[in-house]
C-alpha cells in the first residue's frame, strides 16, 4: 500500500510555482539595481552582528571637509552616563530584569569620580512595569514582545532619569550618554528636560551603521588630528568626530548646545581623557554598569530568596527546535 502523501493532492502547487516565477523575475531586476549602486564599493562584512570598524579607516573623503577640534583650555566638569540591563528570568505572567547605571565625572583631562546606582529589579507584565516609572503603552507593548527591546526600554528609562537629575547641576558643562539621541525607538525628550540648565547634552554613538552612513566620515577619518564634520543640523545636531590623531570616528548627537559646536567639542577634548578617540568617562561608566557573571548569579540567588521563587528546570529552545547544525541566525 502506498503510504506516501502526495503534496499536489492537498496544496495548490500552481500558485506556489507562480510565486516562485515572480521571485525570480524580481531578483533579476533588483540584482541589476543593486549592482548599479553597490558595485566596486569598499565593503565591511558582518561578524556575529557586532559593530565593526575598518582597519584602514573609512576611506575616501569624497570632497567633504573636516574641521579641526582645538582644545578649549577651560576647567569644566563632564558627566557621562551608561547603563546595563539583563534578563534574569521569566514567570508565567512576565519577565524579571536587573538594571544598573553609572555616571562618571571627568575634568581637566581625567576621570575624577563616579556614582553607581543599582542593580535594581524590574518586573514587566501586561499590567505594567514594577521597579521603574510607568511606561507608555507602546513602550510596554514593545518591551513585552522582545526581551532585547525590553532591556533597551528599561535602560533608557533609567538613563533619562539620571540625565534629568544631572541637568539640575549648573556646574556641569556637558552631559554625555552612550548611544544616539535620535533613536526612533527611544528619542530623548530634550525639550522637556532641564530647561534652566546651561550645559549641553551629547549622545556618543559607536554604532558602525550610523558612523558609516555619514558621507563626512571619510574626511574626518583622514584628518591628521582631532576633527569633526557636521552631518545634520536641527534641534539635535548630528556630527561625526574623532578626538585623537589615531582615534576612531564616532557619531555625536549634540543637543542644547549653547555656543559654537567647536567650543563644546574643544571643552570635551580638554576635560576628558580619550582612548582610541573614545571618552574615558563613558568607557568607565560602561565598565561600572555592566553585569559580570558572578553578579548575574548573585542576582538570581537574590530574587530566588527574596521572592521565594521555585526553580523551573529549562532547556535552550533554539537548539532543541532548530538542531545543532545551524550556527548562526
Amino acid at each position, binding site marked *: 500500500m502506498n503510504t506516501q502523501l502526495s503534496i499536489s493532492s492537498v496544496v495548490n502547487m500552481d500558485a506556489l510555482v507562480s510565486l516562485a516565477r515572480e521571485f525570480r523575475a524580481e531578483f533579476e531586476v533588483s540584482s541589476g539595481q543593486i549592482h548599479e549602486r553597490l558595485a566596486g564599493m569598499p565593503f565591511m562584512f558582518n561578524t556575529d552582528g557586532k559593530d565593526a570598524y575598518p582597519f584602514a579607516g573609512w576611506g575616501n573623503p569624497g570632497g567633504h571637509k573636516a574641521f579641526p577640534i582645538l582644545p578649549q583650555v577651560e576647567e569644566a566638569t563632564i558627566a557621562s552616563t551608561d547603563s546595563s540591563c539583563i534578563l534574569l528570568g521569566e514567570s508565567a505572567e512576565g519577565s524579571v530584569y536587573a538594571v544598573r547605571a553609572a555616571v562618571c565625572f571627568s575634568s581637566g583631562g581625567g576621570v575624577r569620580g*563616579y556614582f*553607581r546606582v543599582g542593580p*535594581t529589579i524590574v518586573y514587566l507584565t501586561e499590567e505594567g512595569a514594577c521597579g521603574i516609572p510607568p511606561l507608555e503603552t507602546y513602550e510596554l507593548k514593545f518591551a513585552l514582545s522582545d526581551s532585547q527591546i525590553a532591556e533597551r526600554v528599561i535602560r533608557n528609562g533609567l538613563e533619562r532619569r539620571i540625565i534629568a537629575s544631572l541637568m539640575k547641576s549648573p556646574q556641569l558643562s556637558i552631559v554625555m550618554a552612550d548611544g544616539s539621541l535620535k533613536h526612533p525607538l527611544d528619542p530623548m525628550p530634550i525639550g522637556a528636560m532641564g530647561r534652566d540648565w546651561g550645559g549641553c547634552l551629547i549622545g556618543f554613538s559607536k554604532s558602525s551603521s550610523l558612523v558609516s552612513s555619514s558621507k563626512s566620515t571619510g574626511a574626518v577619518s583622514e584628518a591628521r588630528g582631532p576633527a569633526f564634520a557636521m552631518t545634520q543640523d536641527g534641534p539635535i545636531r548630528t556630527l561625526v568626530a574623532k578626538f585623537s590623531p589615531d582615534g576612531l570616528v564616532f557619531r555625536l548627537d549634540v543637543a542644547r548646545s549653547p555656543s559654537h559646536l567647536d567650543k563644546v567639542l574643544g571643552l570635551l577634548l580638554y576635560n576628558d581623557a580619550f582612548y582610541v578617540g573614545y571618552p574615558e568617562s563613558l568607557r568607565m561608566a560602561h565598565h561600572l554598569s555592566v553585569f*559580570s*557573571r*558572578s*553578579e548575574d548569579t*548573585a542576582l538570581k*540567588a*537574590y530574587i530566588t530568596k527574596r521572592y521565594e521563587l521555585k526553580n523551573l528546570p529549562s532547556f535552550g529552545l533554539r537548539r532543541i527546535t532548530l538542531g545543532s547544525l545551524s550556527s548562526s541566525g
Partner: protein
Amino acid sequence: MRILRKDGPNILVVASPVENVRLGEYLVVTDKERSLVVQVYDENYLDVSGIEEEVAREEVIFASTQGVTEDPAGVGTISREIRDMRLLQCKARGSIEHGRYSSRIDWVPSRTSSKVTKLAVNELLDMVGRPGERMIKIGKSGKQQMTVPAEAFDGRVTIITGRKESGKSHLAKMITRGLVQHGAYCIVFDLNEEYGSIGLKADGTPTDISRKVEVRRPGRNLRFSLEGAGLRAISSLLQHSLDMPGTSLREFVRIWEAMEAKHELRISSLGANIQQWRCNEFVRDALYSRYHTLSNSGLFAEGREDEFDLEGFVRSHPDGGVLVVSLSRTSPLNRRMTVELLLSKLVELLEHRRVPPVFLVAEEAHLYLRETYWEDLITRMRHFGAFTLFVTNQPDAIKQEIYRQADNIFLHNFSNDSDLSLVSQASMVDADTIRSIVRTLPQRMCLALGHAVNNLPIVVAVEAFDSPPTGVTRLFFQKEGASPRLEAPEAG
C-alpha cells in the same frame, strides 16, 4: 557545602567563603541513613566564567577612582561571596552506616539532598575504634586534643620525616616520653644532644620519667668489654664497621677462641695475641691495624666490671626507661661501632628473652647505621622485639622498601618536589593527599598516616615539647652583646 562532582574516590565539594574548612579536615556527606566520610586535600576558587576580566576591571576602576555605589538589594555582597566560593577537593575515605565505620566508598550520595558537614577527628576516630588504650598526647587536630595509642608503635616501624626545623624532634621526643610513661623501654641514638633533658620540663622541674632517663656517652660511661660483647658482635663490628676481609676474620675467630680458652678475653691481651699468632704477615698486619682502631676508640673497657650492662639497665628500671646514647661528640667511626655493638647486644638479649621488647629511636640513622642493618631492623629484629622509630630530614636516606613496610609515617613539611614525590610514592595513602597537604604544612604540623591514626590521614599540630631547650644550633650572631663563647677542649 554541597557535592558538585564525584570521580572515583575524588569528590568535589562547593563551599561558601564563610565555611572555615582547612586542608586535612574531614567532612561527612549524610544521605539518609548512610554517610560518606571524605577528607579535604586541596582547595581552589570556584571557577566562575569571566572572573579574570571581572577582577581586572574592578582592580583598575576602583584603584584609580573613588566613587559612590548605591546597591539597594545588596547584590554586591552576594556577588563577592560567589567570587570567593571555594572548591574543596576531597578523597572519600569510608562510610558510616548505623553509627559504624567501614572503608567502603562504592556508593554515591545524592548531590541535591545530601548534607555536607564537618566531622571532628576524635569523633571519627572513636567511630573507627582506637587500636589501644595507652594514649600519648602529641598535639591538636583542629581544636581538639590529639592522642595516639602507644600500642600503635608496638611491634611497628615508624618514620618521622620532614624538612629541617619542621618539628620532627619535638614529635619524636613526645612519643618517646609517652612510651616511657607507659612503662616501655627506649634506646635513643641521639646525634644532637636533644634527648638528655627528656625527663625535665621546660622550667627545669622533673617529670614523672626523670628517674627513668639515663644518658650514656660512648668512650666515657658507655664502654664494652670483649667478653661482654661476644664473638658475634665483635666479628660483626670488624666485618661491617672496619671492613675486615674474610681471611683475616677467620684468623681472628681462631685467636678469639684461643684467648677464650686461656680466659684472656681482654682488649689489652688482644694485641699481644695477634702479634704472637702464627699466620700470614699480611693477615697479621690487617688484624693488628683493626686492633689499634678498637683499642684507640676508647669504647672498650678492660673487664666486664667497667662495661655498660644493657640487661642491668633494664633490671634497674623495672617501670620502663630510656637509654639516651649521646653520639654528638663521637667520631663517625666510633658512632658506627657503638651502634653496631649495642644493637648486636640488644638482639642477643632479645633472642634469649632476657630483656623485654625495646623501642629504638634513631635520628638520622643513615649517619651511623650500616645499610644492611636497615632491612634487618624492620624484618628480623622487629620479630625479636626491637621496634624502630626513624627520624630524618632526608627522606631519600630511607629506602623505598622501608617506606613500604612502615606502619606509621609522620610527614612534616616538604616543599622540594623530589622529596614530595619520594614520600608520596612510598606512603600508604594516595599521592594527591600527600603532595597537597604536606606541601602546605606549617612548622610543627604533620600529616599522620598509618596504624596510629587507624589508616585515616590526619593533620596534627604537634605541641611544643615541654623540656628545656637542647640541641639548639650554636650561632655566631647571637643576641646583641653576646659574643660566641669558647670552651676549653675536653680532656681525652
